[in-house]
């Protein structure tokens, strides 16, 4: 079958196996819209974005430079709110705990999530099992926090009773000790969000080229080798999405922590977003809260960029190889 194309005033003329075919295009479709046209198309979205995001952002900056407290009236504070953060032990402790919390959650969620995806991929019960695994993710985080609060409770909690019966726990509940409370939060996060990583990884595994896998196996590679050399590099872009989502969630979500420990006991789970919530909406020091929020925002952006760069390397290399 041969094709040849020439343009005509009202469209495109094609010749398919010698037969003339005219694809008619209306005149308007050929006119390149002006930039003003695109601007008006985007205007509603820009207005909404400005209202819900840009305006509050500048308002946040304004508040960070003022004393805004529970009593009436605001006064200009300059950089005092930021200066106070330098000597605020809870602020720095919050950062350390946040990195611990986020790091452990991501490590286990990626590890278990990918493992589950490998097990589920191509399994005859894949659809049923994926549906079951996704259930925790469908639960509102605040509800998940309450459910686990009751499960961990030393007076009537079923998990506590089970772990105590097995001799793993004593009479102190997992969230009642400064040594184990963080582990309790991490368990809940892993339970709820590992399915997301599994789902994303599964989607990536469906796109791994079979020819590469088969060629590698013909060359005598083991299943493990196949996974490391072929599957893993191919799913890097998908993992990047999962890691970015979870990383930013961990820096934002405080529902479970507030329901389970409220940052305690003894500040052992007082990660920075929880401290930010306390400062802003419990102490009503909105100026200081705004300063903390800005630092959190800046660090999140920087870390996000770094993550993209780290994962972009292998992902783009793989794309280059493929092309």
């Amino acid at each position, binding site marked *: 079958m041969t094709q040849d194309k020439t343009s005509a005033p009202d469209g495109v003329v094609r010749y398919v196996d010698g037969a003339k075919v005219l694809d008619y295009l209306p005149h308007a479709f050929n006119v390149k819209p002006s930039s003003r046209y695109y601007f008006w198309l985007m205007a509603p979205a820009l207005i909404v974005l400005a209202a819900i995001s840009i305006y509050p952002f500048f308002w946040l900056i304004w508040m960070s430079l003022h004393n805004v*407290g*529970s*009593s*009436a009236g605001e006064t200009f504070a300059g950089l005092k709110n930021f200066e106070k953060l330098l000597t605020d032990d*809870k602020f720095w402790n919050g950062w350390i705990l946040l990195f611990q919390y986020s790091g452990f959650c991501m490590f286990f969620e990626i590890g278990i999530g990918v493992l589950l995806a490998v097990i589920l991929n191509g399994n005859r019960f894949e659809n049923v099992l994926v549906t079951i695994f996704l259930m925790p993710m469908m639960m509102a985080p605040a509800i998940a926090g309450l459910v686990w609060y009751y499960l961990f*409770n*030393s*007076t*009537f909690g079923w998990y506590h009773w089970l772990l105590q019966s097995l001799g793993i726990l*004593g*009479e*102190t*509940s997992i*969230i*009642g*000790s*400064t040594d184990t409370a963080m582990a309790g939060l991490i368990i809940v996060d892993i339970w709820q969000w590992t399915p997301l990583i599994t789902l994303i990884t599964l989607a990536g595994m469906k796109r791994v080229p079979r020819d590469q896998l088969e060629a590698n196996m013909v060359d005598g590679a083991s299943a493990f080798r196949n996974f490391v050399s072929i599957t893993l590099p191919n799913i890097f872009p998908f993992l990047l999405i999962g890691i970015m989502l979870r990383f930013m969630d961990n820096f934002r979500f405080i529902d479970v922590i*507030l329901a389970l*420990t*409220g*940052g*305690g*006991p*003894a*500040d052992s789970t*007082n990660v920075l977003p929880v401290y930010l919530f*306390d*400062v802003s*909406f*419990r*102490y*009503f*020091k*909105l100026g200081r809260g705004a300063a903390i929020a800005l630092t959190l925002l800046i660090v999140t952006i920087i870390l996000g960029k770094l993550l993209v760069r780290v994962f972009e390397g292998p992902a783009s290399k793989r794309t280059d190889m493929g092309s």
Partner: protein
Amino acid sequence: MFNKPKDAIYTSISRRRFLELGGGVASALGTGAIAVGLNSVMMRTPVQAASSPEAKMKQYAGSKLVFMSENTPPSFAIRDKIKDFYDATGITVEILTDDLPVVAQKVGIDMKSGKADFPLVYSQDKPIGAPFADYFADLSKFIKDDTLPQDPEGYGADVWFENFLDACGYMYTRDKLMAFPYDAAVALTFYRQDLFEKYSKDFEKEYKYRMEFTPKTTWKNVLDYTTFFKKLKQAGQDVPYGYAQHHGTFAWTTQLDIQRMMYAHGQWNDFKIDDRLGSQKPGPTNWGDAQSVEIMKRFKELADVSHPDNLANDTLQLNTVYQSGQIAMQVQYHEFAASVEDEQKSKAAGGKTAYAPCPLGEASWIKNGGKAVNGTNCGIGGISINKNASEDIQRAAFIFATHAVSKKVQYSVLTGLGGTPTRKSVLAEPDVVAARKRPSKMPNALTFEAVYDYGIKDPHFVLGPKIPENNEYFKIIHAETQKCVAGKQSPEEACKAIKKQTDNANDI
């Protein structure tokens, strides 16, 4: 869109235009419905001083108010019987309830943003009243207004229990009355009398004095009792632990927990201020002095022999632990007696629990030269009116506020879900007097002797600090005390950390 005769003289409406108009109307109606649904609505029939009492009550008939309150029995009971108020006034009141920290957040955001979505506010003295004092209306002007219905008993300090009006009604100045005492949570000791009787002889053999609870029982005795129960437990006996403290996630009750022990020893106070008024500039805190370090040390000693999950229990959870028979004593608020005496839910019910004042200070633990008292503290919940609301909404809200703190309603709440009266006259009712003895139809009344006849009287009663930074101050105490209890820092370090952070919060 629609059929149009050929000779029609009117302009037809296109489908697109019809949909645009329909969408606009629907949006406007939706927005309006949301606004009306969430906010208060005002209808007014003007009255004069000479108008009948009924006309004064009905002057805002058809209006709607929203009351944001804590999830405590008085609010549940008033909500259950809200029809009585509607019948008398024609005003609809929606009562929303939540945990106290959530109430503080919601009303704080509402008032700070200049709005009045909650014209009626539950203003507990320290977590809500002290930080947001600027935003509450002055009730004095309504009390003097003869076009509004007034309570026949009045609102003077003498009609309420000692210091209750000061606790929630006045913040930093007596020029403005910002709340009426609505409910009260006063601390006292709940203890398992059956267990005390059972083990008294064994205890006496070892400690050479009787295991009992009286107003003379000291914190040192509590430490001994708790140690004794722990030894029995470790010996494999089927007994509960002796005691547990208030920790968990409720910062303000941890502060109250250690404050009453501090006050019992030499009447130690957090700041050098008059607690009845509080202060917006409290100056340096007393934390870090010899007395505070000594009591922090004892607080940790008590924690070491208490229930092993001590740090996980907030005030509500602590009561559940007591109800489930896991501890033999708790210092708890008198509103919890109703749940402890509930035979369906409590292993401590059926006459097993007895009530006593908070423990007395131990003379040998006093370092500041003061006297030993039964340090008793409280949370006095006020009902206040949001100053951002319009004058008419404030007036309508006042009608509800006076209803909510009336003798009739307080008596009704006490006989229903178990209230905590703030008006003296309620306790004089014959039913209430009879209910102080078992079998009681009003379980909370079993605590009245320890609370109203003893605990709230001078010199035992401590109101606690009223400062704008209260919520941060409570959180500081909560975290540093828990670090000490968990063995992460010494009592000296804990007290110094509290002082440093508190003074910093107060811009010292």
